[in-house]
């Protein structure tokens, strides 16, 4: 399956047919630091993703000056 990452924008291939939380663990991404987006939907970490899926892991952290 394809995973779109940001900052910088890039795409990686990982195995599908497993839960989102397993994909995040493989990519060493903390679940609380991203939104998981499939198509037009948000999905939770317990949902399964298929080999044919594309998901975006959109970082939620912003920062710098106040």
């Amino acid at each position: 399956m394809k995973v779109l990452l940001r900052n910088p924008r890039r795409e990686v291939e990982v195995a599908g047919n497993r839960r989102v939380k397993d994909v995040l663990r493989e990519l060493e991404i903390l679940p609380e630091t991203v939104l998981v987006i499939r198509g037009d939907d948000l999905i939770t970490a317990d949902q399964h993703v298929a080999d044919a899926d594309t998901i975006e892991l959109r970082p939620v952290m912003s920062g710098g000056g106040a």
Partner: protein
Amino acid sequence: MKCRKCGDAAVLELRRHNAAFCAPDFLEFFRNQIREAIRKYRMFDRDEPVLVAVSGGKDSLALWDVLIDEGYRTTGLYLDLGIFDYSVESKAKCEAFAAARQVPLLIRRVEEEVGAPVPIIKSVTRRPPCSGCGLSKRYLMNRVALDEGLPVVATGHNLDDEAATLFGSVMHWQTDALPRQSPALASTHPKLVRRVKPLYRLSERETAAYAFLRKIDYIVEECPFAKGATSIAHKQVLDRLEVPDLAEGDDSTSDLWLALRPGEPVPPRLDFRMSQQPADAVPQ
């Protein structure tokens, strides 16, 4: 995973609330948190006009979206920092947002107002870029509010921003900064308007989810000058402190040091794997 309120399929899990929500119930939860923030700190009344400082990012646009929906009289303020393509894109996001909702948006260029854009301020002040930028923004937000006769400025600071600021003040023993940090700062001088943070009860993951579900087109890319910012390092540390694996010894104190002080060598006393040390071998 099911929505805590209605039992439908959830789209977002919020561990800190031990809950998950479907999209409609999450949006209502989000709005309720802002209503409660405004009520608890008496941030502004229904009949008061509010200047909303917007950056093109998820937090400030989510805040503006809620305030418009709630019926407040709002004016947006975008400060063009002059940070190359980043500023061009973020300004376009704010303009498109305001145009779609037919709400007023003021645009001020930092270069015109304080004499130089942020990249130049960064190079001549020797301050970290975020420091000079934040100072310029606070000054300009206040000045524009005064010029426009608006009694209050609302910013998109969220719970993670506030936690990181508090953490930084404690870490650096800045006791004078602690009483200044509040969800609502009263006007203490005729030339200082009230400043409020209606998102202080909401995490940045929650504001990102709200913006996504509301189809708000915000700038996802990070400011090029924010890389390595102290506030981001503090957020990363706080995020990792809440990961159960850390307590179980799958991480190291040296990683925490590097997150807090990127580039600085790790002191020998911290350079060990917690999971590899018996309890009585931990250095004192």
